[in-house]
């Protein structure tokens, strides 16, 4: 069953259309990441589901309950959502235990029972021993785990995560992502996860919805959207890539700058020949070899060692492309090499056409 269903949702701030005809649904137990740059409308989408803002058109359903439409707006507290905020949203005058007990008290649980349950939830997110601290005495990561425990205590039908890791440093981030995923799986509730970080979206979510200028532009699994982005904008949003112009000859052959390479794993297009296609090549989709070893030729123009990989820029007959080679390499600018893409994705549409 669809835990969250959004149909033709439109939100306006005065003359500005913040969301324009959004259609989206999330299954029970599924996490959907909404990925977009700032100002794209992703937080607005979350606010509309939570009930923090009114909608101008369309409908939002949670389970079989209509929670928002142009005419109807169910109060926030009756929507069955659990929200985790970007800047934590912790009440400065309450201890961690009181904070987590708060939703339980609102469910009319007796104080003693609520506190006991809150203690269990805090233990579940690894905060045993910090129950009696106020937010001022907790680190950012600890504060956000209190926020997570509070959302868990709400017993929501839909979790709403509003860039929960944006204010944390990278070390904390991975731990919290893992925890969010694990706790959400335990509850079996649906989750909407707003983020601007593609890596985070891929780690956390089952599906990713790319949002741009108030519209959804692609909704797909993490793998699908990474290996087959619908347009150039999505390709760049979801990770590093080079886009070259090439002719698609058949299901696994490309002609780049006059040179032909076959055995390329191509994404969706398989029918016939496409001239002047725009092809996405991710840095790790390229194989590189000594001159003459592989079908395509190139000259190395820059080499930057970055630890886990070395980033090389190759001047090829189809233009400059960026390649990531695991570990350190012995290449230098000016070296003649050969290369081939192992995988490539043909862009199906222009970025300007935004049909969702």
């Amino acid at each position, binding site marked *: 069953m669809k835990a969250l269903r959004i149909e033709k949702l439109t939100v306006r701030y005065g003359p500005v259309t913040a969301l324009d005809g959004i259609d989206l649904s999330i299954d029970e137990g599924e996490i959907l990441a909404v990925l977009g740059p700032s100002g794209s409308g992703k937080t607005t989408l979350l606010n509309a589901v*939570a*009930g*923090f803002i*009114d909608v101008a058109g369309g409908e939002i359903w949670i389970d079989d309950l209509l929670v928002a439409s142009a005419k109807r707006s169910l*109060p*926030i*507290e009756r*929507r069955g*959502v*659990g*929200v985790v*905020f*970007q*800047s*934590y*949203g*912790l*009440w*400065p*005058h309450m201890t961690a235990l009181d904070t987590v007990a*708060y*939703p339980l008290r*609102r*469910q009319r649980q007796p104080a003693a029972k609520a506190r006991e349950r809150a203690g269990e939830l805090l233990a579940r997110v690894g905060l045993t021993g910090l129950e009696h601290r*106020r*937010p*001022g005495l907790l680190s950012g990561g600890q504060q956000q785990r209190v*926020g997570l425990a*509070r*959302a868990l*205590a*709400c017993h929501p039908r839909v979790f*709403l995560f509003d860039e929960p890791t944006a204010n944390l440093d990278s070390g904390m981030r991975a731990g919290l992502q893992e925890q969010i995923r694990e706790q959400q799986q335990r509850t079996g509730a649906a989750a909407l996860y707003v983020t601007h970080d593609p890596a985070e979206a891929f780690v956390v979510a089952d599906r990713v919805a790319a949002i741009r200028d108030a519209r959804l532009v692609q909704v797909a699994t993490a793998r699908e959207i990474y290996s087959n982005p619908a347009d150039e904008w999505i390709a760049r949003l979801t990770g590093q890539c080079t886009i070259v112009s090439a002719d698609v000859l058949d299901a696994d052959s490309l002609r780049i700058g006059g040179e032909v390479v076959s055995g390329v794993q191509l994404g969706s297009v398989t029918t016939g020949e496409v001239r002047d296609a725009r092809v996405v090549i991710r840095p790790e989709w390229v194989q590189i070899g000594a001159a003459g070893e592989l079908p395509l030729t190139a000259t190395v123009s820059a080499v930057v060692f970055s630890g886990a990989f070395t980033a090389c820029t190759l001047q090829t007959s189809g233009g400059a492309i960026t390649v990531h080679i695991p570990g350190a390499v012995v290449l230098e600018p000016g070296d003649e090499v050969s290369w081939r893409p192992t995988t490539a994705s043909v862009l199906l549409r222009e970025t300007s056409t935004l049909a969702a």
Partner: protein
Amino acid sequence: MVSTANSVTEQSASPHPTSRTRRRVRLAPTSRRLRWVSLSGEWIVVLAGLVILVGWPFGRLLWDAFSTPGVLAHLWNQSELTQAIKGTVVTSLGAMVFALVVGGGAAIAFWRLQIPGQKLLTGGLLLPILVPPFICALSMTQTYTAAGLTDHMAGLHFEWLFGATGTTVVLGVQQVPIAFLIIAAAAHSRGSADLERAARASGANAVTSFRTVTFPLLRPAILAAAALCFIAAASDFGVPAVLAIPARYATITTQIYRAMAFSSGGLADPITLSALLIVVALVVLGAAAKFNRATVMGSRASSQSVVRRRPWHVAVSVLLGLYVLLVSIFPLFGLATVAFTRVYGESPVPSHWGLNNLRDALTGSAAGAFGRSLLLSVCVASILVVAAVLAGRLGMHRGGRAVGALITVPYAVPGSAVAVAILLTFGKWWYGGLLIIAVAYLSRFWALAQQPIAAALGQVNPEPARAARASGASALRAWWVSVWPAIRPSIFAGWLLVFLSCLHELTVSVLLYVPGRETIGVIVLNAEQGGDMASTSAIALILTIAVLLCALPLVVSRRLRSVLGFSAGGAL
């Protein structure tokens, strides 16, 4: 755990584990001495100013009050004094409640609800800051009591304005801006919308989330506002002078005035009452400052309201508009009609209008008083901005906090107490001239200049000055290029605040003037007490217009507006 491991390896890896600390120890005395030398001139000036303007007079006053045993017993045994104390407590508590309900209520309503016309209403609610208390009281009597505007127009007059009730209400009107500003500031800094959203998402309805989240967050600010309103009301002289004295209702400040102006009993009673006011003010404000500071930060998130506009929000707006109209706009109008009516007591119809009162006000003894007040205001404001820059530079070093706290004392305590302390200390040399009033003003208003200027100095980014020095500029030139532009608006704001406060000052000067050397505030009060309502109103109107015009930059410029909050907020 990781960090512990790191520090251990760092220490064991370093061949000289203590070399770092040792170097710091060796360097420190030199640099501190250098700083000391360059600042010692400023220290001497500032410390001398503090001793003359704060330490000596207030030390002397408190010593005189409490060195003789049985002072408090004496206080309680004289029914006159206990009546005055009771009067102050009753009217100030009443005013405090009034201000919290109106000002705090409006602040919370503006922040939580969608009140139409918020900006305009805010301006209206803050208007009393710009109108001197005694003129506010005066305009109320000219409008709402017998022979006032409402009497002429509708036969309505409200004689309860004279006495305890009227004093309480008008004191309350005067304190509304304080309550509004403090609670609004707290609401905006602490109450991020996310906190309330989190409560709602946790299952709380609007009422519960206000009760369990919003109100507890605002409680410290509400307590602080209550303390400030109480002390400000207890310190006020102008309102009870106009409204309580005619009804023979006494407060501490009017009692001090009576004892000094009309009785030959010496300074004994004023000293005791002043000391009492000082102690109460400092204790209450100290506690309030602690309350307000002890609270925690809120996250800095969007502050858009959660609530949608409802029809009753318009009703709140109308009610507040009516309030502003009744207590600020209409009384000023009433004052103007009296000033423009040729003969006092005639109904204010166009055929009775004339400019004779205003002409008399500008040519008679009031003209000299205007000149004296202007001279005092310009001199005091100019001296104090220099003092504030000097003291502000010290504020960044050790002992700076203590300096800042001492500077605040004369502004936090009642003006009457400042006047008594200055008179007690310097009266035997300077009584009878403008100098003693100037010294009292310097003492009382230093904090007004200090706060914006010290705040600006504290926020100056040191990098541009360092860059200027590194590019070859001298210390003075570097200061001129990088610090001066950053603090210039605050210096202007501080100057203007002191200037305005001196211009309409009454409480201090009424205790220190001699006949023939009145300030403009004293002229208004004396004319009022002499029953000359026409010229009282005319002078008061001119003074109010002058103050409003001078205050315009403070209200219009967004950068300067924040300073207004301090002038109302007093010691906090």
